Each structure stands twice: as C-alpha cells, then as structure tokens.
C-alpha cells in the first residue's frame, strides 16, 4: 500500500525531527486508526481486511516508535542512513561503562537495604535523570544532522540503550520486592 511506505513522520503528517508534540501524535494516531482499524472492515472483502490489518499494524508500529524517546532516536538514525543495529551497537566510553558497572552493583544490593522499596525508587529516579539528560542533548544533535552530529547522536543512543535496560531491571527488582511483601 502506497501510503504505508511513507516514513512514520510523513504518515503522521509531521516534519522529520526529534522534538515532537506528543498530544498531536496521539490525536493523529487515533484519527488514523479510526479509518484503518480492522473493526471498520468486518463486512468488507477479505483483501480489504488484510490491508486493514497490515495498515493498522503499521500505524501501531509508527506510534510506538514516535512516542518512545529511544526508539524515535534509533529510527531517526536509520532515516539519516546511519547503519545502526541496536543488537550489536555498544559504547566504548570507558568512563560511562565503569559507571554502569557501579550502578549495576548498586542495583543488586538494593534487596539487602534497610528500606529496599524506597531505595529502588530513588535508584530509578537517578537513572531517569541520566536518561533525560541524554534526551535533551540528542534533540540538539538532530537539529542540524550533519555527519558529526549524527555520530554523536549514535553514541548517545548507545548509552540510552544501556540506561533503558538498567531502568527496566530496576523496575523488575522493585516488582519482585513488592510482590514478596504482598504475598
């Protein structure tokens, strides 16, 4: 389908860029799904149903990508022809890597702290602050995306990947603590 080969920004009728108006993205998402969602094609031909399914899945993917700061950055890199594979990319910034090791150690200690749930919350707040700092600075890189800026953005994306994973692990740890307390 022609329109669905458009990039996610075009599909949502927005300029290609890192800074987005999330409310606008949400509204466009709903408007698009209102016309494409398979629920609108229950009585249509099989082929229309197939197209609706593909279209709705594509719009969902676009929405997930645009609203997520990390996925949006990764996607922008690929749009700018930066060959980027989230599976294999990793930073070589030793200072950052050392800090990550320390944070991970700290995370593993949380269950043994006096107030583990509060410690987990504080820990996640710290990770979020680091992540948000990268978001603000990557936004600037994408404003004038020349080769140098894109390389910097790529390095920040690598770091964001680390932090996101760490945050998810901290969340899982907090969930375990909470469930233990409840049962």
């Amino acid at each position, binding site marked *: 389908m022609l*329109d669905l080969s458009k990039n996610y920004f075009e599909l949502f009728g927005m300029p290609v860029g890192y800074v987005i108006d999330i409310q606008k993205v949400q509204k466009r998402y709903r408007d698009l*799904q209102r016309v*494409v969602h398979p629920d609108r094609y*229950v*009585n249509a031909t099989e082929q*229309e149903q197939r197209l609706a399914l593909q279209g709705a*899945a594509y719009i969902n993917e676009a929405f*997930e990508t645009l609203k997520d700061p990390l996925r949006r950055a990764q996607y922008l890199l690929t749009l700018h022809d930066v060959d980027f594979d989230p599976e294999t990319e990793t930073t070589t910034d030793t200072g950052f890597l050392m800090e990550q090791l320390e944070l991970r150690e700290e995370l593993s200690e949380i269950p043994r702290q006096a107030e583990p749930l509060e410690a987990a919350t504080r820990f996640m707040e710290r990770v979020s602050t680091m992540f948000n700092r990268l978001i603000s600075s990557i936004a600037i890189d994408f404003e004038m995306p020349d080769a140098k800026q894109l390389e910097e953005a790529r390095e920040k994306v690598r770091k964001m990947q680390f932090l996101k994973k760490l945050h998810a692990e901290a969340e899982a740890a907090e969930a375990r603590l909470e*469930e233990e307390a409840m049962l």
Partner: protein
Amino acid sequence: MALLQISEPGEAQAPHEHRLAAGIDLGTTNSLVATVRSGQPDTLADNHGEHLLPSVVAYAESGILVGAEAQQQHTLDPHNTIGSIKRLMGRGVDDLRSLGDELSWKFVATDSAVPRIQTRRGNVTPVEVSAEILRVLQRRAEESLGGALSGVVVTVPAYFDDAQRQATKDAASLAGLNVFRLLNEPTAAAIAYGLDRDADGIHAIYDLGGGTFDISILRLNRGVFEVMATGGDSALGGDDIDHAIAQWIIQQAGIEEVDAVLERQLLQTARSMKESLTQNDSVSISISSTGWQGELDRAAFHQLVDPLIRKTIVACRRALRDAGVSADDIEDVVMVGGSTRVPRVRELVGEFFGREPLVDIDPDRVVAIGAAIQADMLAGNKPDEEMLLLDVTPLSLGIETMGGLVETIIPRNTTIPVARAQEFTTFKDGQSAMAVHVVQGERDLVTDCRSLARFELRGIPPMVAGAARIRVSYQIDADGLLSVEAEEQTQHVNASIEVKPSYGLADNEIADMLRASMEHAEEDVKLRLLREQQVEARRVIEALTAALAKDGEQLLNDEERKVIDAALLQLQQLADGDDAAAIEQGIKSLEQRCDFYVERRMNSSIHDAMAGHNIHEFETLEES
C-alpha cells in the same frame, strides 16, 4: 409528466439493511447472549425468563442437555456431565495433570494434542462441548430476533493465551457462527460502562469470573477505548473459592474418601455457603454421612479466600506498573464477574485502589452487554459511530533460541494488531532446515513458557554458516490470534512451513467434528459448504456494491469500472448456482480484479483523515 428515475447498475443502493448481531459471553460457570434492539443493549432470556445459561453440558441417555437441565444431572451422573469446560479450552493433555485432581471425567488418550472426554455419547473435545453451549445461545438469539445472525462477538478472558483464543474461535465456527471478533471480557465491560457514563479518563476493570481472573487498565478518550495494560490468571476464579471451602469441610468433618459424586455435592454445598456469606455473618452446615456439624464464620472464610484475593491484587499492581500509572490515577474501578459479589473481594480491591468499586451494572451481564454493543457496531449498524477499541496482547510472544532460551519478539501489552519480525541465521555450513518453536509467556526459559507451535523451515539454499538470513515474522490480528511466517531473505526462497499447533485442533480434526455434528442435524456437509460460499459471495458483492456507490465514480475510470462490474455480475450468477467450488473461485477472481481499487480506497481514506488534520492543526495554531 412525471420523470422516471434513472438507475445505473450498482448505483441503486438498497437502504442499509439492519444486520442481526449478538454478543456472547461464554463463561466458566454461566453463559449469556445479548443484542442491541432499538438502540438498547440487553441480555436475552430463555422461555423461563432466565438470562444466565449454566455452562454445563450433559451427555444423557435421552440426548445432549445444556444449561439448567444439564446441571440437574451433575451430581447424579458426574462422569457424563461437563461443567467449567472453559478451564480446558486450548489446554493440552499435559495440562490436565495440574487440573487433574479436580476433574471427575474420564479422559481418552489419542494421538491428538487435544484431550478427549469419554461420555456415553462418544468422546468429546472441549471445543465440541463449548459449541453445544454456543448453539443454545445462538438459537435463543435467533428466535428472539426473528432471523439468522449475520455475526457474533464472543468474549474471552483478556489473559487467554493464543491456544485458548483459537479454541474459542473453533468452537464458534463449529456451532456455525460467523465470528466478527473475539473481544476481551474486561474491554467488553468497559464498553458497557464507558458508553453508559461517557466517562473520559483511566479506568481499572477487575473481572473475577468462575474460573478466570483479568485486570485491565484502560484509557477512555472520546469514544476511543485504549487498553494500556492487562494482566491476570486464566486459571483462577470463584471455582477456587468453592474448592477452598470444600477442602475445609473435608478437613473439619474428617472425611477420608471423596468420590466424584461426593465431591460434586461438597462443591455445591461450598458454593451455597459462599453465597450465604455475602448476606450473613456465618453459615452452619451438617454432613449427613459422618454426622458432622459445623459453622463457617466470616473470619474463617476470609482466611480461606484471602490468599486467592491477594494473588489478584498482585496482578493489579503489575498491570498498573505496566500501564505506567499509579492507583491514584485511576478514575473508577469497575467490578465484573459473579465472584465480585463476595464482599471480601470488594473490600480488598477497594482498599488497594483507594476507592469504592463500581457495581451498578449487574456483574454477570455487563460483559455480554458490552459484546452486544461491539457486535452491533461491527455489523455496520452504526456507520457514524466513533467508537474505537485498541486492545493489547496479554502475554509476550517469543521464539526458542539456542540453549532453550526465549527471545521475545512481541512483548506483552503491545497494542494489536501488530507485526514484528526478527532475523536468524544458520549455524552449520550447508544447513538446509531450521526448527522454529513459537512460545508465549514471561519467563526466560522455554520450559517455563507455553508452547504454541513448532514448525520447520525447509529448503534453505546451501550456504556457509551465518550467511543465510531467515526472517521470522509474527503477526497478531485484531482477535489476538497469532500467525507466524518464515522466509530465507538472501535468495528469497519461500521455504515450506508446516505448523503443528501444540494444543490446538488440526484443520482436519475440525472438519471431522463438523461432519459428526452434521449427522446429528441430518444436514449434508456439502450443503453447508455451499451455503457458506453463497453467504460469503453475497457479503463480498454487498461490500463492493456499497463501496462503488460511495466512491466508484471518483476512484475509477470507465475502463476499470467495466472490468469490475463484469466480475461482479459473474459472481452474482455463480452465487445463484450450486457449485461451491466455482463460487469460491469467483470470489477469489473478483477480489483479485479489485485489488487496485481496494488499495486506492484505503489510501484515499487515510488521505482524508490526514487532510482533516491539517485544517484542524491550523485552527489550534490560531488559538494558541
């Protein structure tokens, strides 16, 4: 002189026909059917004025009984009376062990993955048992509406996995129903509540049924129901409360041997005690066989049920976390399912969310009512309706990788429909085949997850290790059902795929069941196939005619229009005949010839949606 109206073929659109549609809540303990009549959704009663149909099927000497009649057989003839079949839907023979000690039926070993229950009227699968219940509800709806149903929405627990959903859909097909959509039960309840109250905001739906528990967190925004997260347990419900009480009686009364008949009696006693405790502070019982007399008060009852309720609260906590919201963000907590009548459930759930739960729509009927509203909309009876449901997949879907580990391809709580793909490679030189094992669940090890299907990709061209690029694509449709494809990318080899559902029925098994059910109905399979093709042909013709009337002029030139009109006419003629295969071929050929038109239509509606945006955006700019 009066002018005659000129009518072009295809243009004269029949006034929209009201299509008969129904919502079906296929429950563990009770099932219901509801429809929308004159804009009002309501559940339908049987001849005795009963709305609830007990989900019990008895394979009696006199015939197959469903509902209250079957329930009367339950204690008398437990081996031939089947209740709570929902617990076995989509379950494999291996799963029975975990449910085993509670089940009084005899299972037959076959080479199929699906368990078969031995009854005096032959061996039956859970799908067939469910189809019997669905047939009764279908008849009730058709008698009440005075015509054949064009389609139904059947509800399933949000936490049902792929095999359980597929089994439910198979049961509906076996009953001869056209399934518009499988709808998640909490989402159905949200529709019934949301449209009733016009309540924008974030809501929690707590659904504790007879055998399943769901929690859904969803955002309602001007007719859009967006499920943010869902969680639950597809083997936890009011039945477990009954079992806990029955266990307590066995212990207290010192009963040593429990056969199937006594177990049935105990469970019935337990259930009435549970019901009595919703009103009274204590309930006394006596067991005639041992002469034991006892009393269960609320405090002791709470000790029995609190662990079960706590399990549901943990799932609520997790769903909130997945949705990225806290309990304070929740506008309303809606109680669904008969088991939420237990005051202790309301108390603990209210405590957790910090607000009084809503119970003002009958918790037994709210799901069927929501399903009826959705069915009415999907049937096309409300073309201007703005309602839109965006649901999620409850469990992560992954693939087995080296070392028995799971690699997630679609994480839980992803909005459906969704399509995701991952690439894999060969690890041996000249490797020509690859095994793909599809699993569902949240754990890291394959053995801790649910196996959905296995297939083998064959015919990979010979290459050195690591050179092949095999793309495995997962797609979940709007019913929450998964399909998987695999393809070798470098040489675009369409390698063969053979899917073996781990716990589902194979296509030929379903065909066999259909044949068997036809013998009962004294109807010919061929005739049914012909009817199905005719209905399908008429549906396609109707859909296309409506589309052409709407935008055929704009989107097609004369040449294109002629080709489509000719194909339409051809199918019309075929549909009047009695050759099912020819009709099927005719539908395919018409669809092929309309391919480009369908694409144009979809693009044009996307275009229109976006055009509307730009104007709106301009306005908001002005305002701000």
